[in-house]
């Protein structure tokens, strides 16, 4: 465990700042978040809608465009020169890194492939520069890679609309992995899929990740997916990271009251325990609660929670929690 992390997120802050027709709004979508991703692991990021998980992913990926602004902190990949992040890196450097070292699997496979372009050409557009070699070399490489994902080479002749949703998502995964990148960012890649296809696609992501030894940052709100796929897990609530640790530890011994709720509220086939929903409503990020952002809905809330924001504390060797009610050493 002394290996340096492949991604170090360090007190990252990114806010939406907009002045729309005179009304100024500042939304702290990513608020002081720190965690590491080690080589060869799948790091999961969980949270409900508008918890800031997609924004966090975008900030890490350097996809920061107004009104999103980087306020502070850093997200540093080990394959970048020290103290640089993707945001503001120079274009030639970015062009080298993109797809060969860092690739993406995006939400909504429906629209991420150019509808008017054959799959073959899309592969060439993205990967030919990095893989090099002659045209026939490239064709062979592509076909081999597709067969690894149990995709018939004939999909190369298809247009995106001719493929089913599951098929398209598998093509996207093949596209994202063909250059054997060190790091893959995956944003809700299976949310739109049916459960049977979802399981298949998750297995595929898992197997190709193990084979290549890449790291994956996997964002989804579905706790079942996290339980089945990820090695480490971070839980987000209202723009803050509230708990992070090994997935197995978090599911077996969740510490933060929100995490506990997330895991325990979900019904399972085979047990008939009465499950309850959380009271209250998710906070409005434009106007978040003071102190701990979870306190209005928290069963353990005390006075301090309303005024002071809890810091991350180490509660187990690889588990950190931000909660006043959970005892632990300062991280």
């Amino acid at each position, binding site marked *: 465990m002394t290996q340096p992390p492949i991604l170090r997120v360090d007190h990252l802050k990114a806010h939406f700042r907009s002045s729309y027709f005179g009304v100024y709004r500042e939304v702290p979508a990513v608020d002081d978040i720190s965690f590491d991703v080690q080589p060869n692991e799948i790091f999961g990021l969980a949270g409900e809608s508008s918890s800031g998980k997609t924004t966090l992913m975008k900030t890490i990926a350097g996809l920061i465009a107004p009104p999103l602004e980087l306020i502070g902190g850093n997200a540093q990949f080990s394959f970048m020169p020290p103290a640089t992040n993707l945001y503001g890196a120079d274009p030639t450097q970015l062009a080298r890194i993109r797809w060969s070292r860092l690739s993406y699997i995006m939400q909504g496979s429906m629209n991420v492939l150019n509808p008017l372009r054959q799959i073959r050409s899309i592969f060439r557009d*993205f990967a030919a520069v990095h893989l090099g070699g002659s045209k026939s070399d490239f064709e062979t490489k592509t076909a081999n890679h597709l067969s690894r994902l149990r995709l018939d080479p004939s999909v190369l002749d298809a247009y995106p609309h*001719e493929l089913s949703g599951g098929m398209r998502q598998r093509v996207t995964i093949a596209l994202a992995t063909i250059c054997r990148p060190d790091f893959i960012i995956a944003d809700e890649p299976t949310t739109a899929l049916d459960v049977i296809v979802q399981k298949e696609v998750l297995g595929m992501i898992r197997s190709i990740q193990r084979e290549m030894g890449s790291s994956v940052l996997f964002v989804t709100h579905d706790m079942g997916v996290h339980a089945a796929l990820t090695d480490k897990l971070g839980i987000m609530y209202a723009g803050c990271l509230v708990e992070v640790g090994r997935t197995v530890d978090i599911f077996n011994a969740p510490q933060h009251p929100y995490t506990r709720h997330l895991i325990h509220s979900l019904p399972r086939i085979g047990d008939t325990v009465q499950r309850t929903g959380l009271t209250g409503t998710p906070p409005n990020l434009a106007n978040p609660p003071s102190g701990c952002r979870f306190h209005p809905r928290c069963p353990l809330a005390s006075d301090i929670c309303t005024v002071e924001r809890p810091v991350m504390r180490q509660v187990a060797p690889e588990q950190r929690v931000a909660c006043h009610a959970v005892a632990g050493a300062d991280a």
Partner: protein
Amino acid sequence: MPAYFNFAMKRLWQFVLVVFIGINIAYVITHVTPIDPVEQSISAVTSFGNTSPEAIADMRRSLQELYGLKGDWIEQYFSFWRRILKADFGPSLSAFPAPVTSLIARALPWTFGLLVFTTLVSWSIGNLLGALAGYYRHSRSLKLFGVLAMALHPVPYYIVALSLMIVFGFIWPILPITGGSAMDVAQGWNWQFMASVFHHSVLPALSLILIGVGSWFLGMRSLVSNIITEDYVVYAEIGGVAQSRMMGSYIIRNALAPQVTGLAMSLGGIFNGAVITEKIFGYPGLGTLLVDGVYAGDYGLVLGVTSIAIIGVSLSVLIIDLLYPLIDPRVQVAS
């Protein structure tokens, strides 16, 4: 292929429908009028000068036949259609006894050439510049072009043509402002004639192109500024796809489909523009023929040009529609 066949049949059916409704409108217009069109036409023609009584009787007979005033309305209706289908609009009254069909045949190449040339030029230039303006949103020169296009695009053809005529005909007279070629040059496939045709077409073509470029530019610019926020463009951007490829295969290619549809839908409007532009510059095409036909009270001519316009425009729309699947493979699977 059966999908394409289906698609083509549907388009063909729409074409037939357009022609059918269009010609019916023409029939209704000419038959519900309270005025006696035959006497009106004849008085319009005879007021120009001395026509022999025999010629007037001849005219009256052919007009009555053309209007289909014989028999009951069903018979009238069918004889009307028979004439349209045979492209027989009778003799022209203003150029008696030349048949209307030959007048139209003489004018058609001029209009066709002018329209095809200006439409292709303005469509391609407008779309290319529009795509660049949508993609490079901060370019100053493209922004300036946008302002110009915004000021020019809403102005009707007539005003633009008139302004060009004033500028190049009176203030700075360097271009011919009337006719299709110089009077003293014989028509034929020779350089001298071609050069003269080109010289004379500059102003009419320019006025059509100026407006055309502006509107395609504006349409394309807003399309592209929407397309660059589409997932597949964002994805290609973070995937490091080369700029030229992005522009060509990702942005322009996807904007092209709606612009081709747009072209089909605006052909009618473009034709309207050509009619008036031709008239202003005395260009010997269908537009001039139509307007002069009205002045001369030449019913057969007006009906003939109107019918040809309806059929010609919808035929062009049909051709564009049939080529559309080349640009967008998706229509082949859509129902």
